[in-house]
């Protein structure tokens, strides 16, 4: 299959990096508690060292590498009859949603996304929810209108 054409905003990488970093702060707490107890009760010192190394690897992967890969893999395409999304770093997934199945579209924007002038578009069918994350604000708005214009009432709809 040919790769889809449209990409999400490049600023997504920065947002995801901030998110990953915030999550890592919580992880750091967990790492420190474990290390503290090992230190306190005279556990083997190398375990603490190992934990520190693990944390650094974790930091590097989740903050530096992963958001970039994730952005590189994210593609979508909206056509008159159907829309497709393609994403995933380890598991690559490609989903097709026939336009006639779309029930409604949401425009979502959290504080962080707002700061970066980004927004996500969430598409609902009778069975599933699909999110195109971190699009440029204006583009997201345009996409919402485009999709709702394509959605036509189907009499076989449930």
């Amino acid at each position, binding site marked *: *299959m040919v790769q889809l054409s449209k990409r999400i905003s490049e600023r997504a990488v920065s947002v995801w990096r901030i998110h990953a970093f915030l999550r890592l702060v919580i992880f750091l707490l967990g790492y420190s508690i474990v290390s503290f107890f090992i230190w306190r009760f005279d556990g083997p010192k190398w375990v603490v060292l190992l934990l520190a190394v693990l944390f650094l690897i974790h930091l590097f992967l989740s903050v530096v590498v992963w958001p970039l890969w994730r952005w590189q893999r994210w593609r979508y395409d909206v056509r008159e*009859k*159907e829309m497709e999304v393609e994403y*995933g770093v*380890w*598991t*690559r*997934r*490609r*989903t*097709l*949603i*026939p336009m*006639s*199945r779309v029930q409604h579209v949401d425009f979502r924007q959290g504080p962080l996304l707002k700061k970066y002038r980004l927004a996500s578009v969430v598409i609902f*069918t*009778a*069975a*599933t929810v*699909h999110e195109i994350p971190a699009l440029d604000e204006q583009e997201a708005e345009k996409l919402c209108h485009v999709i709702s214009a394509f959605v036509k009432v*189907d009499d*076989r709809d*449930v």
Partner: protein
Amino acid sequence: MFEKKRLHPISIFSYVAKQWRDMLLPLFMAVVLKAREVSMVWNIAVPAVALFYTTLAGFFTWLRFTYQINDEELYIEQGIFIRQKSSIPFERIQGISLSIGFFQRLAGVVQVHIETAGNELGKAEAVLTAVTKEEAEQIAQQIRRAKEKGGSAEAISPISGSELSDDIAFSLRFRDVFLLSATSGGVFGALAAISAFISQLDDFISYDVLYRDMQGVIRNALDGALALVVLFLVAYALSVGRHLLRYAFFTVRNQKETIGISRGLFEKQLLTVSKKRVQGMIIKENVIQRLLGYVSVHMIHAGGSLDGGENGSIVLCPFVKKERAVSVIAACFPEYCIHQQFQPLPQRARVRYMLRPVYVLAIPISPLAYFFQPWGIGLLLLLPLASYLGYKSYRMAGWTISGEQLALRNGMFRIETMYTRKYCIQSIATSATWFQKRKQLRTLAVAVMPRMFFKVTDVDEKEAEAVYMWVR
């Protein structure tokens, strides 16, 4: 002109009984386990207060529940402190099911479940616990009238349609009810329930006395085996009884636009399903049923599960010979074509299917095998068995497209085959992990209903793409 009506007062009893059934176990714990000796406070006051409270609550719930059947809508007011008013336009009602439980039978009334489109799955929009048969009939007629006015002549009437006898598409024989409970694994469920109950009793049956007595009873292995057999027989009888109550007189009526299902021995249930709302068919067969050539047929139903079973599916035939299932479906849903020609998975998927259960099983088994050295090693014999099951599952899995219909099949202990129409598919996805990609394999997943995904793992890349494109 339209009067506000209350339910039949028997609904107070049915409410109280239901509350008591839910409270029985916690109350039992509180009363029996808390106080070893009989004490006024625990053994009498607590249950008395509970009984008083639920009766009061039951009475006021009944008092504050009113319904009104208008020309256009059903209007319900309920709630003791927080008043809830809901109006349900007849035009929007998608399904209605009647059931007659113990209390309803006593008073000669019926319980009506009303389901509308676009509400939460598995939750009937409104339940009228106890109304007269005439009123249920009136509601059904109002719905029919509203539908006719709205242009869609969908007849939803569980009562008037049921007098005809020439439209019976399927009925379950008594013999089959026994076979069903014998093969459905319900026996093991009952066994588990009994053993759980016995272990619960541990706390207040004095151990030592029992042990001394038991030593007398179970002197040797023979007696032990006998005890097991008795336990099994009891479990079996319970399981048969439960299935008998649930599936006795199971009859499916095939009407023009609807499927009517009636069933139950003491608790009668009548439900009507609009054929338009059926999104697909699932055929399930477990290992034992497969050997005997029996299957169960379920309809994927958009909207709640009217029959109180799994969400989104309604049993069409609980237990039926495979060939018969095909003809029943052909009679009720001619647009579905049930067949056995499946596109098998490619050869290179085989090893993945054979190894996957081995990985899963190896994680709990290997430490066990290590710690219980001499005999624990024997557990490792389970691994080839798991691998064999994986092989079987590889042979069973597959997909097929015929005309507008897509069928997917997978499963290990229980094989499930899903048939759906192209226009019922809400979305389709292909995915590949790094390993799958290396072997040019894909996982194919189809969503028909919320929380109802059907997938086949390790389909050939080209074939998966073909199915994906077909949906477009």
